[in-house]
């Protein structure tokens, strides 16, 4: 089954030959940014998830 990885260490994903991966924000907050207010942070999270789901629909 297709899987997509959101990670802050894309070097590891490449080395492990993970076919579908996306670079997240930062190690302690891969899908967030505490410097943003709640609304913008959620928008950021939404954008990243959309990108990840788009990868799920892409042939590799």
């Amino acid at each position: 089954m297709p899987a997509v990885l959101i990670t802050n260490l894309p070097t590891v994903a490449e080395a492990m030959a993970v076919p579908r991966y996306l670079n997240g924000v930062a190690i302690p907050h891969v899908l967030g940014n505490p410097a943003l207010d709640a609304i913008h942070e959620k928008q950021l999270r939404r954008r990243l998830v959309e990108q990840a789901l788009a990868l799920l629909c892409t042939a590799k």
Partner: protein
Amino acid sequence: MLRKAPWRKEASDAVDLELARFPVTDVQFGPATRLSGRTLLVDAAALRRDLLQDDRLADCQVDLMRPGEAVRVVHVVDVIEPRVKVLTDDYFAGITGSMSSLGLGRTLVLKGAAVVVSCALPSAQEGVIDMTGTAAGLSKFGQTCNVVVLPQLQPGLPNEEAARAAMECGLRAAVHLARAAVAADPEAVDTLHWAEPAPGIPRVAYLYYLYSHGYGRERLLYGKTTRDILPTLVHPNEVLDGAVVQCGFTMPSKSVTYNHQNCGIIRSLHRRHNIDLALTGVVMINHNLTFADKRRSAHAAARLARHTLGCAGVIVSKDGGGQADVDLAECTEACEGVGLKTVLVVKEEGGEAGAAYPLVVVSPRADAIVTTGNGTEHIHVFNRVERLIGGDTLYEGQDAASADLELPYNYIVGSVDFEGDLLIRTREL
């Protein structure tokens, strides 16, 4: 014409760093803190008074540990070598010491002594030191005369304050004890002179990764967290003179301040400076939180070494676990990519039995790696514990007085050294 006040020496009058060694082979309590031959006498009450000047501390105990004694300390947070600058009577520039004397002039060192800070801080990971038995043979602090300080923090302190208070308690104690050397004569003086790189000798740089992410996972450069630094050039003598202090007790392995003070890689480079290679400088790099910053720093450091410092090769050390391996992989790619011959120094994470591949990721161009041992390997620590300092139970629940304690090397403080001043390595079975 203005005359210089006679009591005030300028730092520029001093050349090079002089580490004046005062060997310590025993430590005892005494009525005054002083050196009596090679015995460090400690006035515990005076030390306690000095430490309690920091009102973040509600109290502080002092204890002693000598090599060969059946004693164990737990909940270790840091280990520091007692030192003081002659010029300014302080140390640890930017925290408890002045910047003006950093890396120059005479530093008095109680060689063979160490301050051990034991404190149960929130989210801390375990750290144990034994003076006899299995662990003593693996740790450099099983051979040093240790003065243990046990700060008790005021209730209600925010975590960050508590962490800093515990750290500064250890630093202050180290300076306090080192002042015993002021009235004594050193046994030897190590002058760390770095001559201009001679023509024809390959120039190198030391790329020194440090880990700062947040509470309990920090290294301080001149007292400032390295969290958001871009690669920063410093003189090797600044590192060897207390520029780097650690506050990293939530990490599985304690990269103790003592290791930074005695940076193995810099000492080894000095021994061969202008013989086989010439060190041009030390580049501090943070193990950054985002991948973009990791890549940014790796390439910035590579260019700094190659084009600004004119190097032909670099040594790179890490300061963490898996995400640190990512930095090293990026750094290897960046450095080899600009033609720098690269050597990595790594602590391995191959698991309890050493069965897993030792690094989380490695660059295919990393053909020159030196190991400092597998920190995650489990070992049975056999010891008879007649005296226990710091707590009765380890954080993970084991009885701290147990004569057979199974621990990873990471928890045996002094058996791990990212800067390579240790005699532990892995061997393939």
